[in-house]
């Protein structure tokens, strides 16, 4: 196991009033367990406010958890500092959603992508040489490396961001919506590239996305998040073939051009449209957090919060009614 998150949570304080006192918390992630095996592409799916990005950042300690623990390659790194933290940084990487904002606007691409090596004491000339090598692997020509980010297209910038995350050969990379800021035609290029790199470098991915089609293509495991909690998780095939949580089903039924997308014929899903909009994560509903939008809601859902139950091996769902909902 490369990564294990145990009952992890992150609360962001909301300050208000004259003295900017803490008046409440955004419970972005509120008690999540996640186990990622070496070689997985573990997708975390959810809508805005689900806490998926926060969970991604927690898993490589870009944020410190409010509670819970992080175990990376068998070592507890929840409170890692100094050399231990540096080692963790060396073995992990992240690619952000918006390639327009994740590259320093005043640095040349070559300096941006070789910085991880330089931080680790590599001599700049050597680092640049390695950068050029890696860049050609992701399809960035040498001349592009000597330009500034604003002179590159979105796809090219995202390739540069990938080089930066990859260059010291980490074990685990968090991909935070890696293609959602890109055009469709570029999106496919980047997804294919990520797939190739995974094989080449024996990587493990945590893929954060709202796009279930991408999940199906890239991931082998998926966790569906809603308002800071995982509501369903398991192998991708299982979740797509027999989703149990009403929220998972409604995510699947919300895919545009659904008939075309599912025209492979293997999968048939029932259609559920959730009503209304996700509530704010500052005040999640009592009981099951999805009950305000769930078409199957019964009394117990409003009172008691369901816990993750095994449906079968590796497939878990948090719903009072999962035995009745059978896709």
């Amino acid at each position: 196991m490369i990564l294990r998150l145990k009952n992890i949570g992150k609360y962001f304080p909301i300050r208000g009033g004259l003295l900017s006192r803490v008046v409440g918390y955004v419970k972005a992630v509120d008690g999540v367990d996640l186990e990622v095996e070496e070689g997985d592409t573990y997708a975390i799916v959810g809508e805005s406010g689900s806490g998926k990005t926060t969970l991604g950042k927690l898993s490589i300690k870009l944020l410190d958890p409010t509670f819970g623990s992080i175990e990376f390659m068998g070592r507890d790194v929840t409170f890692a500092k100094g050399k231990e933290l540096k080692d963790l940084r060396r073995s992990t990487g992240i690619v952000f959603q918006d390639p327009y904002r994740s590259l320093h606007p005043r640095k040349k691409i070559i300096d941006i992508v070789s910085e991880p090596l330089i931080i680790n004491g590599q001599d700049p000339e050597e680092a640049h040489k390695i950068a050029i090598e890696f860049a050609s692997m992701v399809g960035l020509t040498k001349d592009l490396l000597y330009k500034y980010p604003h002179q590159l297209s979105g796809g090219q910038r995202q390739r540069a961001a990938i080089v930066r995350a990859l260059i010291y050969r980490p074990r685990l990379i968090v991909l935070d919506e890696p293609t959602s800021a890109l055009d469709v035609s570029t999106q496919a290029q980047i997804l294919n590239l990520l797939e190739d790199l995974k094989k080449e470098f024996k990587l493990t991915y945590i893929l954060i996305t709202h796009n279930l089609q991408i999940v199906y293509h890239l991931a082998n495991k998926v966790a569906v998040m809603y308002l800071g909690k995982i509501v369903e998780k398991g192998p991708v095939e299982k979740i797509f073939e027999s989703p149990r949580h009403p929220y998972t089903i409604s995510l699947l039924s919300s895919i545009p051009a659904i008939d075309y997308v599912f025209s492979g014929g293997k999968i048939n899903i029932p259609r559920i449209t959730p009503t209304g909009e996700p509530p704010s994560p500052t005040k999640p509903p009592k009981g099951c957090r999805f009950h305000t939008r769930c078409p199957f809601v019964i009394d117990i859902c409003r009172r008691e919060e369901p816990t993750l139950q095994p449906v079968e091996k590796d497939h878990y769902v948090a719903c009072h009614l999962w035995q009745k909902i059978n896709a």
Partner: protein
Amino acid sequence: MPILEVKNLKIYYFTPSGIVKAVDGVDLYIERGETRCIVGESGSGKSTLGMGIAGLIDHPGRIVDGEVIFDGKIVASKNGIYTQKLLGRRITLIFQDPRSALNPVMTVGEQISETLQHNLGLDRREAYKIAYDLLRKVEIPDPERVLHSYPHELSGGMAQRVVIAIALSTEPDLIIADEPTSALDVTVQAEILRLFRSLVKSGKRSVLFITHDLSVALEICDTTSIMYAGKIVEEGLTREIFEKPLHPYTQALLSSIPRIGLKTEKLMSISGEPPLMIEPPKGCRFHPRCPFKLEICDKQEPILINLSETRRVACHLYK
């Protein structure tokens, strides 16, 4: 007679670094009651086209050729723009970011009723009543509360519903919607699309729906025009395009939508990058990225030819 005709429209931006030919010779016909999608990637000129039809091109942009004919009258050409009186009444607009379309210091009720008072000459009480009905029509659960809310108190989806309500309020002939669901979450997008379909398609209203997402087009549009580098490269019934895309660009767009239940090793992708519109490629603008490039493609620009009553394509492969 179509409600909207666009003839050989050219909109160029005169920037310090050169002339950006954002829209470069577009013909478009929209019948009454038709919902037409314009699908293209960023930089294809799709939004400029929408703005051009609404007569909202700002400096340094300019219509350099062609005309926009609305309901039989020329409303925009290089000689002038006459859409002011139509906008907000017979032509309404919906944008990607609903909050930027709403006035932050006015309640929703004030905004809708102001539009109604101004455009339909209603008095305040009548206007509020209609506003209430409109909000119910766009399926806002508690219209009374929303009427007295300010835009920042609404979620993105709710705000977009309000914008749709305003856009529908004057019973327009044409609604121009530019990526109205792109900023929304998937489940919310599905809801808004469903709403759009049911509301807009009733009646003889026409819609020009601009999107980068071909799947969204299939959800709501009868007909679709695919734009690439300032030109329309293919059009037809949306269903037809999904069943049998003709232009290599459309084919590539379609096959880059990942499908579920069909595990393929690789997604088909278009190589290279979209061209810079300051110096678009000679001949067919797609030829540098086209897997089926012929001898003629970099020399002669293909024109849109009719293959059937509904189907048109601009590609040398079809002759």
